C-alpha cells in the first residue's frame, strides 16, 4: 500500500451538532458588528491637500504607518481619488485634492503654512521606517525638554510632519463632551 493511502485510511470525519455552523456565524457577525462600532468621527479632522492623492496615500502608509480608512474614500468614475481619510492611533487626517476648499499643496505654493504633530511610541523606530521609505528628513531625531524626543520629515509634496515620543498629556476643560 502506498504511504499516502495509508495516511488516508486514518481520516475520520467528526459528527457535528446541527447548530454548530450557526454558532460560528454568530461569532463572526458579532466581530463584524464590533468593527462597525469602532467607527470614528473625531470632532476635528485636519485636511491636508495633495496634487497626487494616490501617491500620497501610498507614501504615508509606507513611510509613516498611516492607514487609509478605505470605506470613506471618494473616487471619481475614472478611478481618480478625490478625497481619503487616514488614521493613526486615535487621530484621523483628511487627504484632499489641492485646489478644493482653497487649499494648496506646498509643492505648488513653495512653502508650507503649518505642520502636523504626531505622537508615536518609538520615535527612533519610526524615523528608521520613514528614512527607509525615502522621506526627506527636515530635523534629525533629538532630545528636547521634559523627556520629549522628536524628528521632523517632509512628505512627497513637502508637507512637514513632526513625530515625537514622551509628549505630556493635556488636562482638559471638558471630558468626553461634544459640542
Amino acid at each position, binding site marked *: 500500500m502506498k504511504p499516502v493511502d495509508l495516511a488516508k485510511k486514518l481520516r475520520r470525519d*467528526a459528527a457535528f451538532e446541527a447548530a454548530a455552523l450557526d454558532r460560528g*456565524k454568530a461569532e463572526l457577525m458579532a466581530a463584524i458588528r464590533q468593527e462597525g462600532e469602532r467607527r470614528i468621527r473625531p470632532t476635528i479632522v485636519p485636511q491636508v491637500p495633495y496634487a497626487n492623492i494616490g501617491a500620497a496615500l501610498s507614501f504615508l502608509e509606507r513611510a509613516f504607518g498611516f492607514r487609509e480608512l478605505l470605506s470613506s474614500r471618494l473616487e471619481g468614475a475614472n478611478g481618480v481619488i478625490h478625497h481619503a481619510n487616514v488614521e493613526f492611533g486615535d487621530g484621523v487626517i483628511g487627504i484632499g485634492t489641492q485646489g478644493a476648499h482653497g487649499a494648496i499643496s506646498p509643492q505648488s505654493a513653495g512653502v508650507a503654512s503649518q505642520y502636523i504633530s504626531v505622537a508615536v511610541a518609538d520615535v527612533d523606530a519610526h524615523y528608521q521606517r520613514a528614512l527607509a521609505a525615502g522621506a526627506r528628513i527636515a530635523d534629525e531625531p533629538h532630545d528636547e525638554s521634559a523627556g520629549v524626543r522628536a524628528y521632523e520629515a517632509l512628505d512627497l509634496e513637502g508637507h512637514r510632519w513632526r513625530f515625537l515620543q514622551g509628549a505630556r498629556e493635556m488636562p482638559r476643560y471638558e471630558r468626553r463632551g461634544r459640542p
Partner: protein
Amino acid sequence: MSPPSDAEVVGRSLAEPEAFGLIYDRHATTLLRFLGRRAGAGVAEGLVGELFRIAFERRKAFDGSRASALPWLYGIGANLLLKHRRTEARRLRASARIAASLEVPDRRAGAAALDARLLFPRVADAIEALPDDERETLLLFAWEDLPYQSIAEALELPIGTVRSRLSRARARLRELLEPKGKDRVRSR
C-alpha cells in the same frame, strides 16, 4: 450575471464589512469538516467561528488575485490547529485503532509489515512524529484532497517546497512498509 468571486466579496467587505458573511456561508462547512477531522467535533465547533473572525480581521491581506478564499482559510485553520496538537494526536491514535479493526488481513502481502493491528498505530505515530510543516502538507494533500497549488497558497510556500515536503513525508512513511523500517519507528 455570475455570482461574485471570493476575491470580489472580500474586496467589497473592506468598505462593507457585513459582506464577509457570504465567505462564511460559502466555506464554513468545508472548514468545519477539516477542523473536525483533525481535532474532533468539540474543538472544531469551538474553532470555526474564531477561524472566520481571524480571516475577517485579516481580510485586507487577502491576495485578490486568487479567485477562491478556500486555501487561505485552510491556512488560518492549520495555524489554529497548532494550539490543539494534543487533541489532534489523541484523535489520530484513536483513528488508528479504528482503521486497524476495519482492515481485512491481506495474506498475499505476507506477515512482514502488514499486520494492521501493528501497522496503523505505527502510521499514526509516524504522522505524529513528522515536523509540523510536513504533517500539515501531508494531511492537506491526503485528507483534504487539495492540489499542490492550493496547499502552496494555504501554507504560503512556493509550490516546489510543497512537493519536497510531501516527498519527505512520503519517504518517512514508506520506511514503515519496508523491512528495514520494521524494527523502529520513532515512538513517543
